[in-house]
């Protein structure tokens, strides 16, 4: 009984990081109607950011997360101007393909430089033991940091001028432009923010699991599932979606062979897309 509970709690802890990754994806989708298929590459970028900073500069892993987030932001803005700016407003296929091509280029460069070997960021933290089950410190800290970042995002979007501008552009770009908001710049900053969130989640994942240049794909797919669960465009929903996915994984692991879990995830994904495309956690009523 407690084994199951422990599994669920651990699943939820890891799930929060999935939620963080998905928040970046869903923010970009909500603001500019673009599904960032370079999301996986950005998660990997975050992983390698932490790795390089700890490996070459000797920074403690958690100190590397901040710089990675900032770097991710600038990479995101750059990516916007290169791949996304010209395809805003064009049919969805165009933005899907342009971001995917960026993904191909980045992953291609990554494999050329680092190959497909496993990398690891050595982190050890004391865990919490409860009734014989240990919750690793890294999982707990990752969840706590995710909560802090999510809270920060909420405050930013609701109380900061730029955050409100982002929401305005996301509601109605023309009206925002008429109100004097420089929408193109806001879009680029929003894209940068979304990518920064993806990089940060990658940075956190690097403290949890080993990774390769190709790891991004799996997390990108998980991000899709979480984003759909939470409703595209809804960052709070994405966090809850992540927790739900983590819960699902935690619940399933004691009973089902691990290899069946992706099957369940993708079936849930397709079913939710068909039955509730607005997501399960969409608390705002959008007209």
């Amino acid at each position: 009984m407690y084994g199951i509970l422990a599994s669920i709690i651990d699943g939820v802890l890891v799930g929060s990081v999935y939620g963080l990754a998905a928040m970046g994806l869903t923010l970009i989708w909500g603001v500019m109607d673009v599904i960032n298929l370079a999301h996986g590459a950005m998660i990997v970028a975050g992983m390698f950011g932490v790795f390089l900073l700890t490996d070459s500069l000797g920074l403690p892993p958690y100190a590397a997360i901040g710089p990675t987030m900032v770097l991710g932001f600038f990479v995101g803005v750059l990516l916007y101007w290169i791949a996304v700016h010209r395809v805003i407003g064009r049919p969805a296929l165009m933005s899907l393909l342009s971001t995917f091509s960026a993904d191909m280029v980045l992953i291609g460069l990554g494999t050329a430089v680092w190959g497909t070997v496993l990398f690891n960021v050595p982190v050890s933290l004391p865990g919490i033991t409860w009734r014989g089950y240990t919750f690793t410190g890294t999982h707990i800290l990752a969840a706590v940091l995710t909560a802090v970042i999510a809270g920060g995002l909420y405050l930013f979007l609701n109380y900061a001028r730029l955050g409100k501008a982002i929401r305005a552009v996301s509601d109605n770009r023309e009206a925002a432009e008429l109100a004097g908001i420089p929408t193109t710049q806001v879009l680029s900053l929003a894209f940068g923010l979304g990518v920064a969130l993806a990089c940060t989640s990658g940075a956190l994942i690097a403290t949890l699991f080993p990774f390769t240049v190709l790891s991004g794909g799996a997390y990108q797919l998980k991000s899709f599932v979480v984003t759909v669960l939470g409703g595209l465009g809804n960052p709070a929903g994405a966090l809850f979606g992540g927790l739900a996915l983590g819960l699902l994984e935690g619940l399933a692991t004691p009973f089902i062979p691990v290899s069946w879990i992706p099957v369940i995830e993708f079936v849930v994904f397709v079913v939710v897309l068909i039955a509730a495309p607005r997501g399960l956690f969409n608390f705002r009523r959008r007209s």
Partner: protein
Amino acid sequence: MRPLAILRRPFFWLIVLATIAFALVPLRGNNVELREELILAAIYITLASNLNLMIGYAGYVNFGNIVFFGLGGYVCIYLVNTLGWPLMLAALSGGAVVSLLAYLFGLGILRLRGAYFALATIGVNEAVSAFVSNFEPWGGASGIYMSIEAYQPLGGAMQALWTIYFMIVAVMGLSLVLSYAIKRSKFGLGLLAIGQNEDAALVLGVPAPRYKALVYSASAFLPAVAGALFFFKSAFIQPSDAFDLTLSIEAIVMVMLGGQGTVVGPALGAFVYEELRSTLLTTAALSSLQLVISGGLLLVIVLFLPGGLMGWVHRRWPGTARILE
């Protein structure tokens, strides 16, 4: 267009000629290396042409199109290896089964529009891939090795490879003919209307849900047969090869590169892309940059040349639009 009217269009005969040429070229001098290259090219052309039915005509981006290819391969290998069926029957059955599944799935996911549909097709591909990885009767994650005896009814391995080559080229030719026939039919007109503005098409009486399900199913048949033949030839199938999402998206690149919505476009795009890819893979310095260059190429097309190569050709020489569709 009445069924036999297609025989009077010059473009149809161009397709037939090209297909025959494709089939005969490696026969000169028993050029096995060229044959292997052309098999790959033919497979890509088949995938791209059928994908074009969804992307170029109906305007629905099927990101997970490779699932048809992989499932066709699995059904065929299972039928041949475990139940001892002859190749032709197994391949066609693979096509039929996958088409039927596509129709049933299509009824569900074709209700979605735009990017939601694209994501759903990825979900379907990944779900099928993950399922097959766990499905022991189909070899699970390690796949199925086909026994060499399966080549005996075809006259031994050497002879069989040639026979399979001709069958794959035939499937390629059929894909092009199907593409052309649909484009010139009332069905195709309806699809193009759906692609341009689905709601307007509905209002004008186009039975969109039925047409969409039909074209989704039709776009599954020949890739499934191609998959059946390809994996039979390889004598080995595993989930990571069968449901390779990268190849699925490369098929989209081929369609975009050549020009979506045309018949020649996807074929041209597939051929050019395959040549580019194999050249990159065999040049030592560039092999690790294959993805980078393909990605860069795709980005340039999307940003500056959305009509692809054929789009550019048609604009530059307007007369070609009537003959080279």
